[in-house]
């Protein structure tokens, strides 16, 4: 375990990413302290420039961009993490049942999973949010609904491989119940790819959330980075910062999660002897 943390944290790219993520998490947790009140409040004249009265200026209605960023961090993280947790829970359930029982159950569940991978998932998410009416909850549902198939496939693959491993067969021969085998023998060994995929899924969820908010499908009462870009795009010519700055926030956050996720993968699966 110590080896894992050393491998994980001493990677400079990973350390930088974690630093940025920690910063975003602090912003998200302390949003109400750092920027009290609603980020939708009009605080100044429209289009005040960057590094003027307000750190990142104000938008077309005179709302502080910086306040929006801070509250947007909370929205983005909350929605993406909740959606990912839901997707991981559901995907793990489907994948482990399919992989463990095999046969017809596996066939049916995998057809369904493939189906959800085939349909254009982003369009599906749009339709879903449009029908459920935009809100934080519908965003979580929509993102989770389009995110679970890869988890299901990975878990199924792991379970399938582990199920044929002899230690699982030994547990069957010892008479352990299916549930005990699945929970005690199989899933712990499938944990590391699950953690890595799950972390990458958060990044993907942030991208989907921001795209939906950009299209105006975000939660109407929640400030978010995608919404800021969507609201600022009409003023691209005159107020470049309205679009540029929230975009950089998304980019850095997603990039950091991806790098940290890869670092996690490298640290969990150190390359064995190259012989």
């Amino acid at each position: 375990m110590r080896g894992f943390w050393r491998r994980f944290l001493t990677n400079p790219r990973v350390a930088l990413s974690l630093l940025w993520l920690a910063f975003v998490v602090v912003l998200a947790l302390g949003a109400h302290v750092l920027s009290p009140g609603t980020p939708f409040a009009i605080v100044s004249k429209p289009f005040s420039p960057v590094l003027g009265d307000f750190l990142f200026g104000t938008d077309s209605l005179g709302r502080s961009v910086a306040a929006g960023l801070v509250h947007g961090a909370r929205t983005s993280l909350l929605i993406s993490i909740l959606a990912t947790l839901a997707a991981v829970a559901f995907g793990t359930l489907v994948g482990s049942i399919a992989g463990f029982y095999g046969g017809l159950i596996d066939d049916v569940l995998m057809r369904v999973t493939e189906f959800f991978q085939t349909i254009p998932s982003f369009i599906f998410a749009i339709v879903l949010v449009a029908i459920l009416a935009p809100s934080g909850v519908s965003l979580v549902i929509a993102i989770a609904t389009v995110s679970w198939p890869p988890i299901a496939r990975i878990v199924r693959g792991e379970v399938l491989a582990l199920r044929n491993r002899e230690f699982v067969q030994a547990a069957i021969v010892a008479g352990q119940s299916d549930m005990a085998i699945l929970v005690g023998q199989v899933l712990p060994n499938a944990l590391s790819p699950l953690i890595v995929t799950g972390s990458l899924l958060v990044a993907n969820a942030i991208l989907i959330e921001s795209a939906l908010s950009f299209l105006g499908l975000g939660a109407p009462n929640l400030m978010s980075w995608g919404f800021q870009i969507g609201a600022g795009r009409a003023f691209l010519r005159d107020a470049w910062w309205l679009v540029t700055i929230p975009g950089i926030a998304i980019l850095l956050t997603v990039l950091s999660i991806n790098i940290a996720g890869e670092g996690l993968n490298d640290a969990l699966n150190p390359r064995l002897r190259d012989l």
Partner: protein
Amino acid sequence: MSAVLRIENLSVALPAWADRRLAVDNVSLEVLRNEILCVVGESGSGKSVMAKAVLGLLPAPHVRVTGGRVFYGDRDLLTLPAADMRGVRGGRIAMIFQEPMTALNPLMTVGRQADEIIEVHTKLTPAQRRKRVIEVFNDVRLPDPERILSSYPHELSGGQRQRVMIAMALVLEPGLVIADEPTTALDVTTQAQILRLLKELQERHGTAIMFITHDFGVVAEIADRVAVMRHGVLVEQGPARDILTRPQDPYTQTLIGAVPSLVPRQAAGRERAHAAAREELLKVDGLEKTFAGRGGAFSFRAPRVRAVAGISLEVWKGSSLALVGESGSGKSTLARCIVGLERADKGAIVLQGHNITGLSRAQLRPYRKVLQMVFQDPFASLNPRWRVGDIIAQGPIVQGVARKTALAEAQELLRLVGLDPKAIDRYPHEFSGGQRQRIGIARALAVRPKLIVADEPVSALDVSVQKQVLDLLDDLRRSFDLSLLFITHDLRVAAHVCEEIVVMKDGQIVERGLTADIFASPQHEYTQALLASVPGRDWRRSDPGSGSREAWANDPYA
């Protein structure tokens, strides 16, 4: 005789994280013109690394040559410029690998893969190249070379693929062929054919062969000279006859002593005399299992495979029955059906008079106390995240034994299988392959079963460890009054462990009886072929001076 290849003081370093510094430690040896030199060693002996070093095929930068010289003719291959080295590879020195499936490019026809060598080394026209490839395919006795030419590797059998590899090695008539365990992945009958072919081609073309192997049977079959390696060091070399019959080095002696002789175990007089009164422990009656081959998304129907096609057999109390067959014979599927890992389509499995066919896992639970299993792969058969104590205690706990009692018993079992009882608190990765297999045996014994199904329990182990584990199984059999159903592809192992034998082929039993009887006069032609294919079968029979003394004590052929 002149040397084709001369290795002088070769050392190869391993990367920093390896368990030792040098893979090959100051090795010097020669391969002479027109001879087969066998380099023998167990896993980790450095034999393969040495072979790869000769052709500069080490996985750089982790593994690298740190000293010595390798002369092919008068040129030192280690200092040769890259372009010249490429001329040597394939042209002067060719190599054959262990696993012909992965050693061939799956997306290229084997004809093109053979053609490619000629293309990069000569200026022949495509038509001339094609003629030469067909010629050499004929030479290695590939059936219908014209057709094979445009086949992909997956369309050929394992033996055919290895013939293609040999053909590729010989196509430019190199001075030296390095064969790295070329028959290890093959079935014993195929192995025999390939060995014969190599020997014959070698004699005909006068090529020198450096043959890397772990199997002294193979050595006895084809070697002119032998070099024995251990932990990267060359411990002994000399003419095959001398090494095989009068090994000087103690390591060579133990290695040769560990090879099970082909002398069958005698059924104890008691068993023979009271055959009628024997108690039947397990009865398998007309068992069938067909797999509906799954082809994935790309094919609607895959061929159905009849893995077990009507098998009936009995295991008597206190006896030991070997189930022998090559890959695809259905022996493992049969074993898995018996222990309930696979559901049979037809037939009955009767354990101690109770029909257990088709029982659910929960219904099978009481029978787990009677019937246990030992698995093949010591690395895959122990959950890496569980402590050894919990692994062993798992069975008794399921049967309702208190965890504390079960763990205490686990310590006792560890002692019985020759491990430190303190091992219960350690994890599997801290143990070697042989030790893990002992843990696996302890796990099977934990519920005090009457019958153990052992599926190739020693085939993943080195030969010296193999013998220890087999001896352990033998001891435990006596002290626990166990019966054994022993699945193996290795007739030597079967002869060593079991009084009775069942020979399987294509899901059916072709011959059964006392091991001694079958070995003395096999009736079925497949059994005859199988016995004739055992590498080095004549070696230990005709040289009673070597090997483990006890094995020879009751040798009727000695």
